[in-house]
């Protein structure tokens, strides 16, 4: 994946670049807003990592111009500015995610993974989570090369969880998402579906974690690796 990094602090840029390269991505780095804007005009990127406090042209302006041109490239904003109002403002400008400095490397990598996953699901309608691969229109799934036999309900559940990966999905959200597949889904029905999905995901490296009182979280192998660190 090709990623544009717009960050004026060189040591941060250097760290982020190293992190992204470790993840196997190609990184172009620019240190001011004008260059970022120009680069975004000239090339198609899969992801923009944008610092808001850029010289020459403010990060918000870069973002505004990008969206104004109708580009849907995912944007991860990194900023030192905290606070709910700032978060809302940045998301309103068209950012896809928001990370406040300083952040843990693992957190940054997870956000990048989630944003890039969305790209591939938009480009080719396919989702990749570690060894797990989902063909969204075809309702089919594979672990490595081996097909995973899932019912429509189980696939719907996995898809709903996978699309919100890195975020907790509440039971209400799952029930709503599954209404397309099933006219009625009871609480009990959801429990059973999750139980079955878990059994089928065993060995795939991906698992469904219950978050007490909040819902479910699809965990990738990378998350579990992070846990051991």
């Amino acid at each position, binding site marked *: 994946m090709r990623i544009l990094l717009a960050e004026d602090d060189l040591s941060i840029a*250097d760290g982020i670049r190293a992190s992204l390269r470790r993840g196997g991505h190609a990184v172009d780095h620019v240190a001011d807003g004008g260059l970022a804007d120009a680069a975004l005009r000239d090339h198609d990127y899969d992801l923009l990592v944008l610092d808001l406090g850029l010289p020459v042209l403010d990060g918000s302006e870069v973002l505004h111009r990008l969206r104004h041109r109708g580009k849907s490239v995912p944007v991860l904003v990194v900023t030192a500015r905290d606070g709910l109002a700032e978060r809302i403002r940045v998301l309103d400008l068209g950012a896809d995610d928001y990370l406040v400095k300083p952040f843990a490397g693992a957190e940054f990598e997870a956000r990048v993974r989630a944003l890039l996953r969305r790209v591939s699901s938009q480009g080719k309608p396919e989702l990749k989570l570690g060894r797990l691969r989902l063909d969204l229109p075809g309702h089919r799934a594979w672990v490595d090369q081996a097909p995973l036999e899932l019912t429509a309900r189980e696939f719907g559940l996995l898809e709903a969880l996978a699309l919100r990966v890195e975020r*907790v999905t509440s039971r209400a959200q799952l029930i709503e998402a599954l209404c397309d597949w099933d006219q009625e889904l009871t609480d009990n029905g959801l429990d059973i579906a999750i139980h079955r999905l878990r059994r089928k995901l065993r060995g795939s490296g991906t698992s469904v974690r219950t*978050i007490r009182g909040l819902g479910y979280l699809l965990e990738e192998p990378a998350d579990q690796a992070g846990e051991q660190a």
Partner: protein
Amino acid sequence: MNPPRASRPSLRRRLLAFLAIPMAVLLLLDALLSYGVALTYADRVHDRDLVDDALTLAKLLGSEPGSRLTQQARFLLEYDPDGRDYFSVASSRYGLLAGDGRLQGSLPASASGAAPTLYDTRLDGHGLRAAAVRVAAAHDPGESLTITVAETLHDRHEQAREILLLAIAMQTLLIACVLSLVWFGVGRGLRVLDPLTARLAARSHELTPIDGTDVPQEIRPLTRTIDALFGRLRDMLALHDRFIADAAHQLRTPLAGLSLQVDRALADSPTAAMTEALEHIRQLTRRAARTSSQLLALTRAQTAPLDDVEPQRLDLAKLVPEAVAQRVHEAIRAGVDLGYQGPAQPLYILGEAAGVQDLLDNLIDNAMHYAGRGAIVTVHLRQRGDGGISLAVEDNGPGVPAELLPRLSERFFQVAGNSQGGSGLGLAIVQRIAERHRAEVVYRRGERRGLRVDVHFPPMPPAVAQLG
């Protein structure tokens, strides 16, 4: 320490002193005046009595045959138990007939005719008041008798003194009454300050103007000065907070760089010793990052009182699980089982979303930090009997000794022996934000062990509850 009571200015003492000195002077003047008036009246009465005596005696003598006083008349005249009365009867023809001749000599030359004459004289070293009357002798029209009656001034002075003493006693009593009325009146009058005092006592960190309808006119200059002082203090605190916020912001970028570079170094497979050192650096960076975020949250919590930011109706049943969900990844990485328990129906409070989020974040930080890996942290939300809402964060960690629970909200307070590297700011932030929401923070032991922090939000004011 306060200076001793006596050296402070006192309204009471000032008022009393202000009244007491002029009143004492007035008392003195009044006494002199009373004495003078009493003496004048006593003089008038005694003079009339003297004249009466002289006339009575003259009548008696004038009707007596011969110019000799009868035994009875002499007894009458000479009866003087106090020795203060004098008399004389002198004939124009025979000289002194009876009494004290010395009285005759002092008769003023003008005293003539039948009208009684009153005059002052001296005898035996005493001042005397005398009345003289001249009548024709009954048996001999050619002979005239001069009757003089005199008395010392003692009686009249005595009477005036009695009146004076009475007046002094009365007036002293009056002054005492006035002064004690002032004493109690000042106390009573100052009670008009009680509502204002109570209002100010209820403040914790507010620096808004204190002027209001309960401020008495007389102390408005004082409250205005205090308000001006509050204003300067607010500006100073705002500047101070802005400085902290700027500093914390400035710290974030280098910390982010440090954190990323450490990750990078760790990823480039260094030696075991270096890995250990880098892990330490990573932990320390995380701690510094957390402290800078908390300093920012603290300044946010302090600068704007809730009234300034226009509180909104917040559905905690929606906001709280979302805020908890944002912390799930971090909890998983820290090996903490973070969960939530709350009702499905909306629970509204009047507040500020960012504040509630800061509050909750700090409670979760605190619980995860001190309960440690393997702990269970649960956020509870429920409606209370009084219509208020209780937000609680409970952990099953080691907890806090009961005697230290009340100290938890102090800034920088840390349980001794706890070297896990918290900044000590978290619960102070919680306290500040709770105060701004008029919420009460209660620290207690968790159900089995650990710490449970309850934040009791007050019920919504009915007017707002009906909106929307």
